[in-house]
């Protein structure tokens, strides 16, 4: 082995042995620095004969280049190893659970969600949303709606009253959202298509009755709408709301002071299990009351019953929620038990819309 070969082998061993960038720099300086072993050899070239130089020149240059490359390669490797070591040391346990994002935690109450669902359906059919006060006069809650003074139908409403005022007037908590119908018919020109969601009150309490509950009434007034339209509207509404392909309805003659003819509507369902299934089965379940607006009511609102006609209906929002989403105790709706709210409530970004399906 020549001197140069021996030197190269020594330097390569040193490069391989350098385990840090600093050690490698030491090797570089020892070989290629001003007084390095390779540089010292290069300096001898000047004193050589042209023949010797011709032989040794390329050999030394080759050595210098190879050593330089080896050092660069080693440097890259060391850098890579150092990065790997750093990354390894930075490892975390990504299985650590996160806090739930607030938007996943919060819930919309089923009454609000179902009301939004109902609005989505009826808005598509051209209905606007009307509202009115909870504290009403006897006139708007009863008299204008054709409940004669002292009529037993008034008693069926289990009304909450306020104390009589000095002038003898006694305010009450509306027993239905129908006073809003009167307000609307008195203040707006037909044609009217309105839904009226809101709180209503009756002095009653058990598993399916609470002293406060929510109603959605609908009203259509124009010059042509008849019971056929009423049937069609309710059928389409129930289909859309329960998100089923078909519903079968049974209309029974009934009585409400503010409509004539009046009907109660049963929906075909399956009550065999613990939950009611709409759109299938062989049972009937009463679901709403409706009818053609009574001529006296129209007259009370300044509309000529021989010119204007239309229908109205009323349905329980809470009850619709119970039927669709399977709650069995109405009282729990108003208890604000977070376990119930988390279970039956809806995610804030799940806004009901017909285009995306009312519910997930």
């Amino acid at each position, binding site marked *: 082995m020549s001197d140069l070969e021996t030197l190269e082998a020594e330097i390569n061993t040193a490069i391989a042995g350098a385990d840090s960038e600093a050690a490698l720099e030491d090797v570089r300086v020892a070989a290629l620095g001003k007084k390095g072993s390779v540089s010292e050899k290069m300096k001898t070239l000047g004193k050589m004969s042209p023949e010797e130089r011709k032989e040794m020149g390329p050999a030394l240059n080759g050595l210098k280049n190879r050593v330089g490359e080896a050092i660069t390669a080693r440097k890259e490797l060391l850098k890579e190893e150092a990065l790997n070591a750093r990354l390894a040391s930075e490892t975390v346990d990504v299985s650590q659970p996160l806090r739930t994002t607030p938007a996943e935690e*919060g819930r919309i109450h089923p009454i609000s969600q179902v009301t939004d669902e109902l609005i989505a359906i009826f808005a598509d059919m*051209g209905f606007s949303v009307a509202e009115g006060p909870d504290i009403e006069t006897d006139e708007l809650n009863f008299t204008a709606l054709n409940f004669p003074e*002292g009529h037993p139908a008034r008693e069926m409403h289990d009304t909450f009253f306020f104390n009589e005022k000095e002038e003898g007037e006694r305010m009450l*908590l509306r027993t239905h959202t129908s006073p809003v119908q009167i307000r609307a018919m008195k203040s707006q020109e037909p044609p009217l298509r309105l839904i009226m969601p809101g*709180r209503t009150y009756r002095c009653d309490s058990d598993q399916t009755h609470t002293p406060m509950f929510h109603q959605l009434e609908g009203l259509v007034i124009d010059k042509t709408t008849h*019971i056929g339209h009423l049937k069609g509207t309710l059928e389409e509404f129930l289909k859309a709301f329960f998100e089923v392909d078909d519903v079968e309805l049974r209309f029974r003659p009934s009585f409400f002071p503010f409509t004539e003819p009046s009907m109660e509507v049963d929906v075909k369902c399956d009550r065999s299990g613990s939950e009611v299934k709409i759109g299938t089965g062989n049972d009937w379940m009463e679901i709403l009351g409706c009818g*053609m607006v009574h*001529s006296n009511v129209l007259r009370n609102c300044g509309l000529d019953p021989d010119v204007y006609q239309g229908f109205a209906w009323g349905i329980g929002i809470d009850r619709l929620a119970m039927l669709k989403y399977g709650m069995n105790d109405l009282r729990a709706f*108003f*208890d604000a038990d977070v376990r119930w709210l988390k279970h039956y409530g809806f995610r804030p970004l799940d806004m009901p819309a017909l285009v995306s399906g009312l519910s997930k």
Partner: protein
Amino acid sequence: MKFTLSWLKDHLETDASLDEIVERLTLIGLEVEEITNPADRLGTFKIARVLEAEQHPNADRLRVLKVDTGEGEPLQVVCGAPNARKGLIGVFAKPGDYIPGLDVTLSVGKIRDVESHGMMASERELELSDEHDGVIDLPEDAPVGTPFVAYAGLDDPVIEIGLTPNRSDCASVFGIARDLAASGLGTLKTPQKTQINAHSNANDLKILLDLGDSPEHCPAFGYRVVRGIKNGPSPKWMQKRLVAIGLRPINALVDITNYMTFDQGRPLHVFDADKVSGDLTVRHGKAGEELVGLDGKTYAVDENVVVIADDNGLESLGGIMGGESTGCDENTTNVVIESALWDPLNIARTGRKLGVSTDARYRFERGVDPAYMVEGLEVATKLVMDLCGGGEASDAHVVGEVPQEERIIDFPLSEVKRLSGLEVSHGEIKAILSLLGFWVAGNGDVVKVSPPSWRPDVHGKADLVEEVMRIVGIDKVPTATLPRMEPISQKVLTVSQIRRSNARRALATRGMDEAVLWSFIPKAHAEHFGGGNPLLSLANPISADMSDMRPSLLPGLLSAAQRNADRGYADVALFEVGQVFENDSEKGQKMVIAGIRRGTAKPTGSGRHWSGNAENIDVFDAKADAGAVLQSIGAQVNNLMVFTDAPSYYHPGRSGALKMGPKNTLAYFGEIHPKTLEALDIEGPLVAFEVFIDAVPQPKKKATKSKGALNAADLMPVKRDFAFLVDSSIPVEKLLKAAKGADKALITNVNLFDIYEGQGVPEGHRSLAIDVTLQPTKKTLTDEDIEAVSNKIVASVQKATGGTLRG
């Protein structure tokens, strides 16, 4: 209204099955609520004969029977009934049978050491009557071994219909049969006119009407005296029907009045004539007068109550209930039978006032057929004479006059199509109305129609349409679709409705749960939150905890938080979007969005977590919630002023109000005052906010929806930090505004990044550190430019707050 199938068939000739009848009843508006058949629960009981009856060896009052049940060996039965005897034919229940009256299922038992393999049943044990003095004792010819229900005719379904208040005509079995017949389900059996052999001289009792200026309270009073009768139990067939519909047989006279009430919808009263002193007068009551009714209760009457009185005082609440002192018992021999008309409104008012519900009141307040008043008296008289051993009847007398009301409706036959959409021929319309008993006259497109006397509910054209439609069948009405009003659905929500919806979802995305709480709260809570207005106190609350309309959403939310805490859920964040009440007017009802956070229910999460434990909620969480709501409903939150005059239920030093000008409050927020916690008996920490959405100005209509061009500068923004020493009483907001206002063109943002009190800062002062963002638009800022702005900021802050730059 309850009746049995066989009872119905007394009046209706029909081949229809029970199912068909039930379905038709529902379709014509007489909704069937329940069908029960006693045979279903008594089907196992058989007729059996007692072969032997020996004294029980160990008990004086018991006997040991050998009973022939019609199959197999005779069975040994221990029996305690006094009438258990050899040869008795009775009703036998075997082990395994359910005894409804005892609510037990029989098993083989040992009674005083003697085995018993069943029992002989009493009527009460089978729920047939209250009779329990002995076991059922059947006639000799009762077929042993056959089912008792078949022999006793108990296989008779009981149908209960839910009667709507307008259909008083169907508060009787006859009326129901009449309606079914009109619907084509059979033929009504029209009763013969009743003839009574009367003796005009048998009447020595007068009825006087003395109702002053309201004679309509009792327009007519029919009566008759019957003498020499014998009152005892009513016949079995009548008792069976009364029991089937839940009435208790008492004696023949009482049972007859009950029977007439249900069979014909004609309430009657029978006085024991011998207990009546002098004449009977129908008059208004007087304050202080009292009547002990047949139910044993005492009723105090007043000037609005119509009573029947004799020389001894009150004897009856007219049309509602008779009195105890002139009631009929087993010794009654002479009676006055009353069949009268009473004013529906006055009956309803009286019944409500006195809190008395009777079958008579039920019918009179809905309307009883006036035309049947006299005939009802005749039928009742006949029943009394038939069932109470003859007697001698006086002539029927009518005091007052049965009103002859003529209701004629001009009925365009096209109304049926106009209101119902149903195509029915003129002939068919007229035929249906006639079948229902309406008088119809005329041949044109408009006919004259008069409703029968038993239909007080029919007044107008729409009523007639309903009659036609319910008989034709609502299912025959073709379904139609409402025509679209607009090609594309329009915006249908008001600003307030949209705001509520947005706020709801904004709060839920902040981790809060929406609650819906009672509109009424305990009075003490209402008062603590500024309510308690007597106008807002319910006269008839369902409970003391629900007595007053809420002046704020917070009492409900705070109480709800405590309920959750009591269940082990201490960290809750709840909100409600709902109405509060300032007074009882429409404007006094306001929409509010309010929320509470309890414990560590921070918007970022609650409780402990490896990434950092949540601290207790504080006033700034509530402020952030209020801000989020305001933002979501379109308020310019950055322009609002913060005041510190929140209501007294908030912590005075940790609460605030967000206002547009000093008078328009948009929101309150803060920690709940310790006294409030005490008043509501709840525990904190609790923070709350209330946003008054109606106070936020309505959005301005804009000409275009364009957001305009984006004006983003090309030059780099520059940030500079400042620290000011400021008196601690100066609100931070003042300093920030001063800094921001120092150069409105250049300064785009001022951010408070540190508040420091303590070493190095004089007592009573704070160090407030801000960074200010300068956004040049035309040229890069030079050091001189920046220096100039900095000086302006320092000067502006100093002027506004007295603060100095911290060295």
